[in-house]
C-alpha cells in the first residue's frame, strides 16, 4: 500500500478527521497499517496470522462507500473470540485453516496469501467457499468460521453498526409500521 492509499484509508476510518498520533503511526510503515493502529495486543494470533485474518476479512466485507472489515478491526475481534470464547478444538481448527490458506496460496502462486494480488486472493477465497459448501463435515469449515466472525465482528462494530447500517440506541418511541424508505437500510 502506498502512502497516498494509506492516508486515504485512514481518512475514511476517522470520517475525515485524521487524528495525528494515529496517522503518524500508520504512515511510519506500510506493514503497520491500519490493523496495528490500535493499542490492542494480540493474544492468540501471531502478527502474520493477524494480517492474514485482516486480509480475508476485508475480502469478505471490503471498503466500499463505507469502511470495511479492516477499518472495523475485525481481526482484533477474531483474536478475542479465539482467545476467550472458542473451544480449544475450534481454535486449533481455525488456526490450521489459516495455515492451509497460506499453503494453498504458496502452491498456486508461490507466495503467501497476503502477498498475492487481490485478484488471486479472491479466486483462492472463492475456492475455499466452494469447498465449504461441498464439505459435509461435522465441524464448520474454516471459511464459514471466518465468514461468521467477520460478519459479526463488522456489523456489531461501531463502524458497521452506525456507518454501514442503522443503529438505534434508545428510540424513545416504538413505531410499529413505517415506510421502509424512512430508514432505507437494515438495523444493526
Amino acid at each position, binding site marked *: 500500500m502506498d502512502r497516498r492509499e494509506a492516508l486515504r484509508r485512514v481518512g475514511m476510518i476517522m470520517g475525515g478527521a485524521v487524528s495525528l498520533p494515529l496517522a503518524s503511526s500508520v504512515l511510519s510503515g506500510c506493514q503497520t497499517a491500519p490493523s496495528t493502529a490500535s493499542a490492542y495486543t494480540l493474544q492468540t494470533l501471531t502478527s502474520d496470522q493477524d494480517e492474514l485474518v485482516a486480509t480475508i476479512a476485508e*475480502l*469478505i*466485507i*471490503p471498503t*466500499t462507500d463505507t469502511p*470495511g472489515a479492516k477499518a472495523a478491526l475485525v481481526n482484533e*475481534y477474531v483474536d*478475542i*473470540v479465539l482467545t*476467550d*470464547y*472458542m*473451544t480449544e478444538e475450534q481454535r486449533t481448527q481455525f488456526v490450521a485453516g489459516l495455515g492451509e490458506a497460506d499453503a494453498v496460496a504458496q502452491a498456486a502462486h508461490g507466495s503467501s496469501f497476503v502477498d498475492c494480488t487481490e485478484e488471486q486472493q*479472491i479466486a483462492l*477465497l472463492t475456492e475455499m*467457499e466452494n469447498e465449504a*459448501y461441498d464439505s459435509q463435515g461435522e465441524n464448520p469449515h474454516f471459511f*464459514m468460521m471466518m*465468514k*461468521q466472525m467477520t*460478519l*459479526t*465482528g463488522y*456489523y*456489531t*462494530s*461501531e463502524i458497521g*453498526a452506525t456507518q*454501514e*447500517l442503522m*443503529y*438505534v*440506541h*434508545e*428510540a*424513545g*418511541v*416504538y*413505531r*410499529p*409500521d*413505517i*415506510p*421502509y*424508505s*424512512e*430508514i432505507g*437500510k*437494515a*438495523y*444493526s
Partner: protein
Amino acid sequence: MSKKRETRNRFYMKYKNVNIAQEMEEYDAIVVGSGISGGWAAKELSEKGMKTLVLERGRSVTHSTDYITEHKRPWELANRGGEVDNATKEESYVHSRDRGVFNEGTKHWFLNDKDHPYIEEKPFTWVRGYHEGGRSIMWGRHSYRWSPMDFEANARDGVGVDWPIRYEDLAPWYDYVESYAGISGELLGLSQLPDGKFQKGMELNVVEKHMRNQINGAFPERMLTIGRVAILTEALNGRAACHYCGPCSRGCSTSSYFSSVSTTLPAARATGNMTLRPHSIVHSLEFDEEKGRVSAVRVIDAETMEQLEFRAKVVFLCASALGSTQIMLNSTSNRFPNGIANSSGSLGHYLMDHHFRIGAGGTIDGFDDRYYYGNRPTGFYIPRFRNISESTRRDYVRGFGYQGRASRQGWGRGTGLRGFGADLKNTLRDAGPWRASMTAFGETLPRYENHVRLDSDQKDKWGIPLLRINCEWGENEFAMREDMGNDAAEMLEAAGFKNVSVYNRFQEGGVGGAEPGLGIHEMGTARMGRDPGTSILNENNQAHEVPNLFVTDGACMTSSACQNPSLTYMALTARAANFAVEEMKKGNLM
C-alpha cells in the same frame, strides 16, 4: 406491635451464645427472599405497619448504579453482548446451558454454579440469581392472569389435588397488583385469558397484524395479541414509560419494567418499616413444639459465616419454589422429622415447570416497503386454544400458548447467503425478508414422581444439604408437544408463510435443549390444597400445620397452567400478606 415499631430500623443484638445465635429484637414479619414474591410481601407487610425484616441471601443491588451493562453498545462489550467467555462458562456450567437469558450483558445476575451445586438425577437446569431483587431483574416480564378454567382444572381432570381457591378469590388481587406493577396489554374478552387492569398495549407490527387477521380468519378460536408485559407504556408512580432500548434484563434505570428493585422494595423502604439484610442465607426454620409455631429463622451470614437467629410473629418464605422447599426440608423437628409442615409427605413433590422450545418459523413475501422503529421489548402472544371447549378437546389434557414475533431479517442472514465481497455487503445493507417464529409454553401436570429432596451427606459451603432434583416430562406433555409444533406451522401456513419449519429442542437425556427447569417457571413443591393430608398450604398460602408460616412463591402452586406465572405469585403474595396482617390484628398468630 405499635410499641415495637418505635425501636425498628436497628438490630438490637444480645449475645446469648458464642457459637450460635445472637438473639435479635423480634420483628412482626420476616420475609425470606426479595424477588417477585418477596418484594410484594415486603411492600404489603411494611405498608400495613408491620416491622419487616427481609433476608436476602445475595448481595444488595442499588437501582441504576448496579446495572453495569445497561445501555452499553454492542462494541463496548468484548463479545458484543453475545455468549459468555470460557472462564464464565466453566464457573457457571449450568447457567451456560441457557444462552437465551445468560449472556455477556446479563451474566452478573446469575450464579457461579461451582459455589451453588445441586444434584441432577435427571437433567434439570435450575436457573438462579442470588441478589436483591432476585430473578425479578432478569425475568421475561410476560404477565397473564390465570382463568377460572385453570383453577378448576385439577378437580375437573382428577389430576393432583383441587385448588383451595377459585378465580374469583384472586381476581381483586390481580386488579390490585396489575394496577401497581403496571401491565401493558390489549383487552380481548377471552374466558381462557381474563382481561385485567392494563395500560395501553404495545403495538403489533404490520406482519404481526397480518398474521392476527389470517390466523383468526382460519381458526376462529385462535387470537394473536401483543404480549401482556410488566413494562410501562405510560408513566406510573414516578416510573417512566419504556424508551424502547431493548435488553431489559440488564436493568432499567427509568424503572420502566417491574422489578422488586425498581418498584416494590422502594415502596417498602419508604414506610420506614423494612430492613433488608443481604448476604443472609437461611439455613432452616426453628419450630417451637409447644406453641406449634415457627419461633426463629436460622441464618448463616454468607460473608462472615456467622450463625444468626431472627425472630418474628410470621414468616413468609419467598425464596423461589425450590429455595423455599429446600429450607422447609431442612427444618426438622420431633413433630416434623421430614420437614416443617410436612406431615402429608407432599413437600418437595409435584414439581412442575413449563415445557417449551418447540414451535415453528417461516418467511413471508411482500411487505418489503414496511418497517418499524424502536426495540419493542415484547412480541406477540397466542392464548391457549386447545381443550377450552368440547370442540377443542384433544387426547391430552390442558394446553399451551405461544410467544413469538415477526421482524425483518438483518445481517445475520449473511452466513446463510453464498458469496462475499462488495455484493454481499450491499445485499446486507438492505433489510431482509420478513420472518416470524413462535415457541409454545405448555402446561405440565403435577406428578408425585417429579420431586426434590435433600442429599443425605453432601453439603454446600454453608453446610446446607444439597438439593437432589428428579424431574422429567410425562406422557401428557409429550402428547401435547405434537400439537405445539404442528399448530404453529399450521398457523404460519394459514397466514401465507413459506419455508415453514417446525423445531423441537428437546433431546432425551440432554441438557440445554428443552429439559425441565429451562422454562424458569419451576413450581409446585409445597402446594396449596384443601386437605392437610395431601397438601402443605391452605387457601391463604398458610401452612396447614404451622399457622405463622406462609409460602407465596412458586412452591405454592397446585397446578401450572400454561401462562407465565409471576403475576399470579404477585397476586397470591399480596392476598396472603393482607390475610396475615388481619390475623395478627385479631391476635390469631401470637
